[in-house]
């Protein structure tokens, strides 16, 4: 029980990841697949962010008046920074994927994978 409640953030990220994974694999509509992919990526971002969080800690901004800096008081800023980059990557991937989907729609007039494959054969 403690494992589930105490580390609920991880469980949520796993659940989200699985939802995304499920959508990517089983959905036949390409946009739905893409949404699944997005959920999948978001799950990882949440995972990173939640690892940085500490109870009762403050945002990592240096205040001039404070003399002693105790790292334990601050939330670790690095995962946030990393995730900024990851979000950029994610958005670009999403952009490229959407561009590809538009090309597909122009070619086949449908976004259902089965129908596209049917047209190919």
């Amino acid at each position, binding site marked *: 029980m403690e494992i589930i409640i105490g580390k609920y953030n991880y469980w949520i990220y796993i659940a989200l990841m699985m939802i995304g994974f499920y959508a990517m694999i089983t959905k036949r509509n390409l946009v739905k697949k893409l949404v699944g992919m997005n959920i999948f990526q978001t799950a*990882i971002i949440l995972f990173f962010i939640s690892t940085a969080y500490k109870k009762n800690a403050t945002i990592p901004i240096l205040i001039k008046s404070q003399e002693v800096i105790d790292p334990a008081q601050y939330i670790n800023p690095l995962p946030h920074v990393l995730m900024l980059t990851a979000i950029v*990557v994610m958005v*670009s991937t999403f952009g490229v994927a959407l561009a590809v989907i538009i090309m597909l729609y122009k070619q086949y007039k449908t976004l259902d994978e089965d129908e596209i494959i049917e047209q190919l054969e």
Partner: protein
Amino acid sequence: MNISDHSSILIIVIPLIASIINIFISLFKRSLCYSFFLLILGICVILSIDILSNVINSGTIRYKLGGWMPPWGIEYVVDHLNAYIIAIVSTMSLIIAVYSKESIKQEVPEPKLPYFYSTYLLLTTGLLGIAITGDIFNLYVFLEIASLAGYALIAIGEKRSVLASFNYIIMGTIGACFYLLGVGYIYIMTGSLNITDLSLLLPNLYESKVMLAALAFLVVGVAIKIALFPLHRWLPDSYTFAPSAVSAFASATMTKVGIYVLIRVSFTLFEPRFFTEITPLSSILVWWAIVAIFFGSIIALAQTDFKRTLSYILIAEVGYMVFGVSLGNKQGFIGAVLHILNDAVMIACLFMIAGGLMYRVGSRNLENFLGLNKSMPITMAAFTIAALSMIGIPPTAGFFSKWYLILGAIEAEQWIGAIALLFSSLVNAIIFFKLLEKIYFAKKDNIPKHKFPELPFSMLAPIVILALSILVIGASTGKIISKVIQFTVPGGF
């Protein structure tokens, strides 16, 4: 200021910026784009040679980005392995760029060519970045830069390439996410992202299950990117329908860089003993690779489309390299690293010939090889060399990497692996001799009446250069090993 001190950053920055400048140039004068594109790649080659010679002469180069001290700042670390991969990637990108001038004209409308060149430069940047960085998160970013450029380049191919590209996006993103997850686990446990720093921090944590999970995520992520069977589904379609130059470039470099990441993760980030002794991962990978070799070879045999045949052969070849890396002994490792070079040259040469076939004959079907020696004698001579190398007949380069791989397999008493390698050689022999027979011994009345002219010079020259370099590399195997590869072997082998 000595330029040479900064070549490890310049080789990333120059193509990155050039890819944007290229678009602006196209606004003024579109015909300049190609020259500019070649110039940049030429500079990359010179820089990569400079890096390689620096590494050979004075050892590992460490470049601190923006002057931040590692492990806080990003650090570029170039040792022999990086320099070797960088040299391969930049040289291949230049050679294939020369080839692309004519071949791409049929595949991309002329006004869009500058975008092709820019994306190509981005792909090069990404691949070079993967090979040069010493930071595992930075590596993820470059991995995605390369992949994104790859998705785009593949999508501009034939009609069916778009769907292939979409599937690749889905698979590739899953792979990248797994990799990122592995990075996350490692970061939680250590608070560091620098590979050198991590290699000192991690040994204390080897008992932790988290490390095992992290390594598993990293390896699976990379396995998707290198199309290790059964995670290969995206590859055949993508490489078959992509433009010829893109197939050649991607097959020659993307999987190879992936193998590089595998080596880095398994042997630099973690110690070899973690990979081989503490966890069963190396033996899992060995068997995984053996299955890949068998599978790739058998499926390749059943194909009628030349590029698809090559794609499945590539899947088997990826198996070779993973096999050699995970054997965990010196000979196997040397074989794998050597095969990175050999396979890049061979498979690029063959994909370029496939492109040539498309260019002149307009089809990739194997039947179109009938009697082709009459119309394209030089191309077919190059094909013969590349084919012999694929089979592994001395003195072509392919023999030597196979030699070390088999030697490694026997040393590890991995007999099934040795059989797999030989089996795949035999399958390649069947595939390629069938083609050679079609080329040289076609019945007169089966040969199409229409004679095709030989390929244009700018396509022919790269093919010939690669074919000749197969022989040259074969003959200088010993030098390559003693100057570069032997220093890449991880300690403890």
